[in-house]
């Protein structure tokens, strides 16, 4: 025993087994090198800062102004990004990477760019508005000329005025510039008109309203406009209708104008004279083309500015993000009494200490500071964070384990065995080598495209799938193996490993359907004999096989879990746990369910007809009874009585001693300490005021006892329920096999029986869809979930505490892309 323990202690440590050793460090940084030091530490990415100012609100912190500036800059950058995407430009990275700018320079540049952009935008908006109005005027002119008869009623003066009005309204002034001008009041005929343009959707209501308002004393002509106009609010093109309203009287005119305003119709004056109309149309057209060129130039200028911004945009954004992160971290540090240094605390892994000291030295040197940065190790009371160094491959498994609970500092990591047992249990439930090959192809595709997919932004489902590509690879490989064992290729058995072990009793096979075949040689060398598929006794045989297999696999995994708890107890030097928890747990589990596994194996090896249910149940109910037909080996009765007694002793063994011994140890350790608590509190202040040291010296016996009782009851009852829970391995593999059989026999074979090509094609398509969606997707997810549950609950509750917290270092690489 001693030798075994020595051997175990001397084993080299295994990579992923326990989390990295961490240490609490304290940094004392002079102010001038603070920013640089934090940036270099961020690049290194191995220090988790503790927030020493957690009671302060964000506005009370030291560097709040800088953080605000960074926020302002990122707002500007988001604005640029918006503008670039609205303009439809692609952002590309300039091939030449420019040197990093200082933050102040960047701020000034960003402010300039923003100002420029806003100005350009405002100008082009105004231009666009004027352009729209002119365009509408042109359309009105086109259509309205058709309605109006050339009339000689207007004097030349009016025309001149009209022309002047039209000209003077072409400046870039207020929007309401082109409303109807005063028409001459002294109209001989009394019939005047208003021409304008309105949205097509509102035209009908507009006409009706006018009709009602003028009591029918009006003439309404309308025609659809030839072109669509851009609506300034929504930016979409809308169809418009040109209208001309003939009316008489001043009151009618005011009413009509008000109704036009209410409906958003714009009125444009159209001269009566045909030559005038032509002249105005020409002027308007020339103005329009001028405006178009101006607008185009404006847009091109703006796009050029945007492109030049776009070159640097990603670089600037990452810079601003890094600066904000640095200032956020600086906010976590404290000023010391002299206000010349910043004091910070953090967790870092021990292997990184040298790297960090080197980075800090570089920072001192680069910032030309006279004082060095002090970096020393502190004692910590609280438990350090958990940090596992994983690679591409083990990362997914570590995340699977962490999803249930992050490991306590330095406790044994179940991920080590999960790498293999999780895909293995999945495969036990999924076993079909045809489906396994499909999964393998999918996994290989994902792995082959690794470099490309890792830089893209994927949807959440694809991201999960991509993250788990190595898990999928192992799952598929094990599925192929288990499929070969179950002998199922899309539920079809093959004779890959030789002939079947069964044959007919005689040459005519007359009683094959009644008495069945006989076994005439050694069992099929690898896997389930192909003769079983399709026979009437297939299910009884396979069910028995798979149920017993589940029990055997389950007992093996649970024993592994308990052995893990032994390694944990050994590592934390808690012999109490070994003697009063590990040993009784092993005894209890193995004397009952280990014994059951033994019986299963003996029954298989001897071919006895004993009923194991009966044996197990009567082992408890009447252990001294004679076994009769159920006797599997000599001495079974005696052995059963011994095992039952052992199990019965194990229960109080794991329940009672530990709390009492803990109480005794506690009282020994703190004997006489109770007198020392009065009036000596000053002596405790040799530590920093911020790091907490709790003196929790009460031992609550009832709490410990109840905790131990819960733990023991959980284990004892769990032994039964967890073993039964492993039967889901049987259940899911049965379901998979049956689904597969149904799809094969009732879809593919049925369709293949017909001669028609169409029916065969349809059958093949239905089979392919059903296999892909139900078997490959749904069953994969289902088996994945159940394998996960078996690991999280049945395996891990034997040893795992999982109440640690994850190591989150301050690292630039980990700053997520908060793209808003």
């Amino acid at each position, binding site marked *: 025993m001693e030798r075994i323990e020595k051997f175990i202690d001397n084993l080299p440590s295994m990579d992923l087994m326990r989390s990295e050793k961490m240490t609490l460090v304290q940094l004392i940084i002079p102010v001038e090198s603070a920013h640089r030091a934090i940036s270099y530490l961020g690049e290194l990415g191995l220090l988790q800062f503790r927030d020493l100012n957690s009671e302060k609100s964000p506005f009370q912190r030291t560097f709040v102004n800088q953080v605000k500036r960074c926020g302002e800059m990122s707002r500007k950058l988001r604005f640029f990004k918006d503008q670039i995407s609205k303009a439809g430009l692609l952002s590309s990275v300039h091939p030449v990477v420019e040197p990093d700018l200082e933050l102040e320079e960047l701020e000034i540049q960003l402010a300039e760019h923003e100002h420029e952009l806003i100005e350009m935008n405002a100008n082009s908006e105004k231009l666009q508005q004027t352009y729209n109005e002119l365009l509408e005027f042109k359309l009105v002119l086109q259509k309205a000329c058709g309605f109006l008869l050339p009339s000689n009623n207007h004097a030349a003066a009016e025309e001149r005025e009209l022309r002047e009005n039209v000209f003077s309204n072409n400046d870039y002034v207020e929007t309401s510039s082109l409303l109807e001008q005063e028409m001459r009041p002294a109209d001989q005929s009394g019939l005047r008109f208003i021409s304008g343009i309105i949205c097509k959707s509102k035209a009908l209501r507009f006409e009706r309203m006018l009709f009602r308002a003028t009591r029918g004393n009006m003439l309404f002509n309308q025609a659809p406009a030839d072109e669509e106009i851009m609506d300034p609010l929504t930016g979409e093109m809308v169809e418009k209708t040109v209208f001309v309203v003939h009316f008489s009287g001043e009151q009618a005119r005011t009413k009509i104008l008000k109704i036009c305003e209410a409906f958003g119709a714009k009125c444009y004056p159209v001269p009566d004279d045909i030559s005038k109309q032509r002249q105005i149309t020409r002027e308007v057209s020339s103005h329009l083309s001028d405006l178009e060129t101006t607008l185009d130039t404006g847009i091109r200028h703006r796009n050029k500015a945007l492109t030049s911004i776009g070159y640097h945009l990603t670089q600037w954004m990452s810079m601003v993000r890094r600066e904000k992160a640095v200032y956020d971290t600086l906010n976590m540090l404290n000023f010391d009494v002299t206000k010349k240094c910043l004091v910070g605390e953090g967790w870092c892994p021990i292997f990184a200490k040298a790297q960090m000291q080197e980075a800090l030295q570089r920072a001192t040197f680069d910032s030309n500071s006279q004082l060095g940065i002090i970096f020393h190790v502190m004692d910590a009371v609280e438990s350090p964070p958990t940090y596992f160094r994983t690679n591409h491959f083990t990362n997914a498994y570590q995340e699977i384990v962490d999803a249930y609970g992050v490991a306590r500092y330095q406790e044994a990591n179940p991920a080590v065995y999960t790498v293999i047992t999780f895909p293995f249990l999945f495969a036990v439930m999924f076993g079909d080598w045809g489906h396994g090959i499909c999964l393998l192809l999918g996994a290989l595709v994902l792995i082959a495209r690794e470099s490309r997919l890792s830089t893209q932004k994927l949807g959440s489902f694809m991201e999960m799938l991509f993250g788990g590509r190595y898990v999928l690879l192992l799952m598929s490989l094990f599925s192929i193996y288990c499929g070969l064992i179950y002998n199922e290729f899309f539920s079809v058995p093959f004779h890959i490993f030789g002939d079947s072990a069964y044959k007919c009793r005689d040459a005519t096979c007359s009683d094959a359907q009644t008495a069945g075949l*006989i076994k005439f040689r050694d069992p099929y060398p690898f896997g389930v004999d192909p003769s079983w598929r399709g026979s009437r006794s297939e299910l009884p045989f396979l069910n028995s096989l798979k149920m017993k297999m589940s029990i055997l696999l389950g007992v093996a995994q649970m024993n592994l879990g308990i052995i893990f708890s032994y390694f944990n107890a050994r590592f934390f030097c808690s012999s109490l746990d070994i003697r009063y928890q590990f040993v009784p747990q092993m005894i209890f589990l193995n004397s009952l369910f280990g014994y059951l596994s033994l019986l299963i194996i003996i029954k298989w090896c001897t071919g006895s007809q004993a009923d194991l249910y009966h044996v197990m149940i009567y082992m408890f109910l009447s252990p001294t009874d004679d076994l009769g037909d159920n006797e599997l080996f000599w001495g079974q009765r005696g052995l059963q009585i011994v095992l039952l007694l052992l199990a019965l002793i194990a229960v109080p063994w794991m329940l009672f001693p530990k709390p009492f011994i803990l109480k005794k140890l506690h009282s020994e350790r703190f004997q006489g300490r109770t007198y020392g608590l009065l009036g000596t509190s000053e002596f405790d202040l040799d530590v920093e005021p911020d790091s907490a040291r709790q003196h929790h010296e009460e031992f609550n016996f009832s709490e410990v006892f109840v905790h131990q009782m819960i733990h023991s009851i959980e284990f004892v009852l769990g032994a039964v329920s967890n073993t039964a829970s492993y039967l889901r391995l049987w259940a899911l593999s049965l379901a998979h096999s049956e689904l597969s059989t149904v799809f094969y026999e009732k879809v593919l074979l049925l369709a293949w029986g017909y001669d028609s090509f169409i029916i065969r094609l349809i059958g093949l398509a239905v089979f392919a869809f059903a296999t892909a969606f139900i078997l490959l997707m749904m069953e994969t997810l289902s088996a994945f979930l159940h394998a996960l549950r078996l690991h999280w609950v049945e395996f891990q509750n034997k040893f795992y505490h999982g109440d640690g917290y994850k190591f989150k270092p301050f690292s630039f690489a980990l700053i997520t892309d908060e793209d808003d």
Partner: protein
Amino acid sequence: MGFLVTTLIFSVVGIIASICSRICCNRGPSANLLHLTLVITATVCCWMMWAIVYIAQMKPLIVPILSEGE
């Protein structure tokens, strides 16, 4: 007899796989131990699966009874 031979084959395959993993990715003693653990676990799992199915068929209590139409 077939049982022992195949068990031997599994163990030989396991040993060869561990040697291969040691040759291909030799990254220091702690990483090597991890790889060795993974290979041995995989070998043991595969062997257990095979052994269970093999032993279950050694002395079966029922035989295949063909259904009609076979």
